[in-house]
C-alpha cells in the first residue's frame, strides 16, 4: 500500500515543479487539476476497509479540484485572453530551482520531525511541505491573478495532504467540514476572478495598485 501511496505523492511533487516551471497558464492549470485528482484518490488508498464517508470525500475532491475549479479558471482565462504569464516577479528558472531546493529541504525536514510509526515510511509529510512551499512561491512570484489562484490551490493541496495524516484519528465530521469549507473558499475565488476581470479587463494584479500608501 505504501509504495502506491508514495508513487502518487511523488507524482504530485513532480506536478509542483511542472507548475513552477510552466510559463503557459493552461499548463499550470492542468498541473493543478491533475494534482487535485491524484490527491483525491489518496484517501481511498489510506483506508483499509471501504467507508462511505471517505469515498464521498474522495469523489467530491476529485470532482471539485480536478474538474470544477480548473474549468472555472479556464473560463476566466479565455475571457480575459491570457495565455502566458509574462514577466513574473520571480522568474521561471529561479522559481524552479527554489522549488527543487524546497522539495529536498522538505524531505530532510520530515526526517527530523517525530512521526507515528505508520507515517514514517510515507512521503505524506515531505509532499505536504513541498506543496505548501510551492504554493507560496507561486502566490508571491506571479503577477497574473489566475497564476496566484493556482498557487493558492497548490498550497491548499499541501495542507490537504497533511490532513490525511489525521484521517484515521479525527472524526470524519471535521474532515468533511474542512472539505466543504475549502470548496466554498475556492468557489468565492472563482467568482472574484470573474468579477475582477469584468472590472479591469485584465487579470494582472500589477494593475491593482490604486490602494497603497
Amino acid at each position, binding site marked *: 500500500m505504501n509504495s502506491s501511496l508514495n508513487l502518487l505523492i511523488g507524482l504530485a511533487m513532480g506536478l509542483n515543479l511542472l507548475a513552477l516551471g510552466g510559463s503557459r497558464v493552461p499548463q499550470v492549470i492542468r498541473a493543478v487539476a491533475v494534482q487535485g485528482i491524484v490527491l483525491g484518490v489518496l484517501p481511498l488508498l489510506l483506508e483499509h476497509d471501504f467507508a462511505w464517508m471517505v469515498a464521498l470525500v474522495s469523489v467530491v475532491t476529485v470532482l471539485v479540484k480536478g474538474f470544477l475549479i480548473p474549468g472555472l479558471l479556464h473560463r476566466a482565462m479565455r475571457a480575459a485572453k491570457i495565455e502566458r504569464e509574462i514577466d513574473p516577479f520571480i522568474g521561471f528558472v529561479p522559481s524552479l530551482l527554489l522549488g527543487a531546493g524546497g522539495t529536498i529541504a522538505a524531505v530532510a525536514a520530515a526526517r527530523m520531525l517525530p512521526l507515528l510509526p505508520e507515517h514514517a515510511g510515507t512521503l505524506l509529510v515531505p509532499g505536504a511541505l513541498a506543496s505548501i512551499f510551492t504554493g507560496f512561491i507561486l502566490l508571491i512570484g506571479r503577477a497574473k491573478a489566475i497564476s496566484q489562484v493556482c498557487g493558492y490551490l497548490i498550497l491548499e493541496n499541501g495542507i490537504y495532504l497533511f490532513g490525511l*495524516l489525521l484521517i484515521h484519528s479525527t472524526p470524519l465530521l471535521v474532515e468533511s467540514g474542512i472539505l466543504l469549507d475549502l470548496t466554498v473558499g475556492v468557489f468565492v475565488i472563482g467568482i472574484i476572478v470573474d468579477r475582477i476581470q469584468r472590472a479591469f479587463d485584465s487579470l494582472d494584479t500589477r494593475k491593482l495598485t490604486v490602494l497603497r500608501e
Partner: protein
Amino acid sequence: MRELLLILVPLAGAALAVVWPSERTRPWLMPAVGAVHTVLALWLLVDPPQVSPGVWFGFDPIARAVLPAVSILFLACAAYGVSYLRIRTERPNRVFVATLLAILGLLSAGHQARHLGMLWITTEAVTLTAVPLLHFNNTSRAFEATWKYLLVGGTGIALSLLGSFCLGYASVRGGGNGDLTFVALTAQGPLLSRPWVLIAWVFLLVGYGTKMGLAPMHTWKPDAYGEAPSIVGAMLAGGVTTVAFTALLRVRAVITAAGEGQAADRTLLAIGLFSMLVAVLFLLGTRDFKRMLAYSSVEHMGILVIGAALGPAGMWAAFFHVWSNSLTKGALFLSAGNIRRAAGARTVDEVRGMSSVTPQSAAIFVAGMFAVTACPPFGPFFSELRIVRAAIDTGHIAATAMFLGCLLFAFFGLTRLVFSVVDGRPRAVQKAEGRRIKEKAGVIIPPLVLMGISLWLGLATPQVLRGAWTDAVAQLFPTP
C-alpha cells in the same frame, strides 16, 4: 439552549432576509435580530449556564467575557444600518442584510467554539461571508480591496488549518484518541508532542494573526476598511477580529498546558509590539481618514496580544480592552462614515472644516479619537493603564517603554489627521453636499450610544463584567 439561540436566531434572520420581499422594510430585520441577540447575550452574561466539558459549542467564561461586546456593537451597527441603507437605495440590500446577519450568527458560533476544528470552520466561514459586504459599493477600488482580502485572508485561513492539523497531530502522536476539544487537548498537556506543538503555534499565530490583522499580516486591513461601508468596517474591527483573538487565547492555553507557554508569550509580545510599531509608522504617514482607522485597529490588536502575553493581570486587561476597543472603534467608524458621506472624499487634501458641515458627527469623531488614543476618562485609557501596570509588574520595562512610545506617536498621528479633517473652513463642494445630507438621528444616536458605553466602562466598570473577565482568566490560567 439559550447559547445555541445566539447562533440560530441570526442565521434564521439571515434566511428570512433572503426571502423577504420588500427592499424598504428588509433592513429592519437587522436591529430586530440584533436586539434579540443582545438581550440573550446580556441575560447569559448575568446568568451564565453550566457548560459540560465535552461539548463543541458552549457559553463558557471566555465567550461570556467577549461575546456581549460584539452583540452590543452589532445592535448599534444594525440601528445605524437602517438609516444607512435608506440613503443608499440605489444598491439592492438583500445580500447585504443577509450576510451581515449570517456573520453575527457565525461570530457567536466562533466565540463559543470549544473544538479546534469547529473554531477553524466558523472563523473561515466568517471570513468568506464578509466578502459580499466588502464590495457593496461596487467600485473598482472595492473589488481591488476584496481581491486582496481574499488572497491574504485565504492564505491566513489555510495556514491556521495547517496549524490545527499540526496540533491535532501533536495530540495523536502523544497518544491522544483524536478528541480535538480544547478541554481534551489541555488535559493531555505535557503528553503532547513538543516539536509539533511549536510548529502548530507558529502556523496558528500567523493564521489567526492574519485575521486579527497583526503586522506583518495586516496588509488587507487598510484596503478593506477603507473601501467597505462603515458599518462593515465597524463589525470587522470590533467583531471579526475579536473572534480571532479568542481563538488565539484558546490555542495559547493548550500550548501553555503543553509546557511551551513561555515561548508562546514571548512571540505574542514580540508580534504585538511589532504591530504597534508598524501601525504607528503608517498612522504618521497616511492621508486618508478611513485607512487611519484601519491602522489604529492594527495598533489595538497589537495592544490586545501584548496584554495576553503578560500573565493573568495582563489577560484581564486584554479582556477589558476588547470591550473598550470594540465599542469605541464602532463609534469612530460610524461617525467617520457620516463625515465621509457628507464630504464626498476621504483624504485630508480634499476634506476640511467638517465641524461646521456635520457638527454632531465631527464632535463624536473627535471624542472617539481621544478615547481611542487612551485619553481619560474613556474605557481604553483604563484598560491600557492596566496593561502597562501588568507589564511593569512582570518586569518588561523595555517593552513598556516601547508601548508608551508607540501610544504617544499614535496620538500624534491620529490628532494630526482628525483635526485637519474637522478644523478649518469647509470647501464649497462640501458645504453644498452638507446642506443636502442632513444629520439624521438614525446615524447620530448609534455612535453616540457606543461612546456613552465606552465612557461608562471607563468610569464605572460594572461588577458583572469584572467578574466575567476574572472567570475567563481563571479558565485560561487553571490553577493546578
